[in-house]
């Protein structure tokens, strides 16, 4: 199938600061990519750029076949982005939020029910205002919204941060399910050596640029020429 993400020499300026200073990256459909790199390397900006939320320049910037330089807005319905702050309305109840998300993404009741069952958001929890939920629960609601939206490209910014081991495994399983369902997943993390994510292709990002393909660090040590 086509390339989900095809970036060549992409530059994104955040108020004159070159958050992305010439990114070359290609991700195939159905692939799982793990973006790694120090803080401020441009991971978040790259994810937001893929979601069509940041004006970009460069030789080629295509996501899901849409040219980001011209039709940035048309890629958005096909993409799901989960940033550090989950885009939820604190005053809404959990079921309101899920229903709103379903209506916006034209999802039906079965998807909502499946998401509620999968993330255990049913019953009394449904009536609780999101503002009163814990950080982990809010993250689950945001992931439920993402699942309801069924995006073709999942973009998650450090989704594992602050999760306990059982939640991490649930998240990994969710991402794996998404990939088997044909979606492409890109997530950023600054934790090193996540065993569960061995399947993912690792991409190192620093200084607003992608490192040349550093293969997954095998046991043979630093023989690869960076």
């Amino acid at each position, binding site marked *: 199938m086509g390339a989900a993400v095809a970036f060549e020499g992409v530059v994104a300026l955040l108020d004159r600061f070159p958050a992305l200073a010439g990114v070359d990256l290609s991700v195939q459909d159905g692939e799982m990519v793990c973006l790694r790199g120090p803080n401020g390397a441009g991971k978040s900006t790259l994810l937001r750029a893929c979601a069509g*939320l940041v004006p970009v320049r460069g030789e080629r910037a295509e996501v899901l076949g849409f040219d980001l330089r011209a039709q940035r807005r048309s890629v958005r319905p096909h993409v799901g*982005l989960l*940033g550090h702050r*989950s*885009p939820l*309305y604190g005053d*809404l109840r959990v079921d*309101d939020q899920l229903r709103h998300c379903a209506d916006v993404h034209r999802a039906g009741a079965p998807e909502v029910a499946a998401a509620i069952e999968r993330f255990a958001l049913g019953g009394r929890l449904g009536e609780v205002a999101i503002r009163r939920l814990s950080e982990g629960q809010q993250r689950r609601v945001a992931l439920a919204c993402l699942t309801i939206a069924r995006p073709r490209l999942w973009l998650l910014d450090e989704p594992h941060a602050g999760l306990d081991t059982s939640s991490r495994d649930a998240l990994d399983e969710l991402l794996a399910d998404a990939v088997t369902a044909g979606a492409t997943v890109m997530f950023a993390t600054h934790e090193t050596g996540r065993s569960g994510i061995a399947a993912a292709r690792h991409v190192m990002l620093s200084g607003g640029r992608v490192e040349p393909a550093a293969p997954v660090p095998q046991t043979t040590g630093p023989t690869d020429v960076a």
Partner: protein
Amino acid sequence: MWREIWLVCRKDLIIEWRARVTLIQIVPTVLLVLVVFAFALDANPSLLGAGAGGLFWVAVLFGAVLGAKRSFDIEAEGGNLDGLRLGGLVPAAILWGKAAALALQMVLVGVFAAAGLLVLYSVTVHDWLLIVVAGLCGMAAFAICGTLYGAMTVGLRSADTLLPLLLIPVAAPVLLAGTRAFDVALGTSADQGWSWTALLAVVLVTYIAVGWAAAGPLLEDA
């Protein structure tokens, strides 16, 4: 397009229904402004009666500023504007959805303020139709201007102080025309009330056009 507008509007109304900020905070504030006017004018009945139309609109304008700020605070909270954009919603849908929700809340504020006016300033309404039509046009115009400037200052650090400075000069003609129309409706002046209402309608239509044009540039980008 109308479906998306209704989605955004419904979401705002549900948030209002859950949190009731307009009903519990903005309406009492507007009534309080009416009361404070009486203090300022030494509760002199003839003075209050003469100025009732104007004082109503100043109080409601104050409510509009609070309402506009609240309308976009809920969006700036969790970066929700991006959430709406990622839902594939057209910027115009977001703008008109929020404007419609704000307009409904402003009508609510207007009804309470009118009740306060009748009670506190003991004025009598001579022309109900005129007062309702002028009121609705004015509220709608306030809502649209409020939404436009709310969108313009969303997420800015000093949005609280900047929004009134930007909104009030634009809302001034609405306040002026609304006041004259209300003066006629309350019988305090023998003006042509309906021509002032016509001016209100013209201003409303102008800002609907401005809204269509400005929605893209304002709400397009992150």
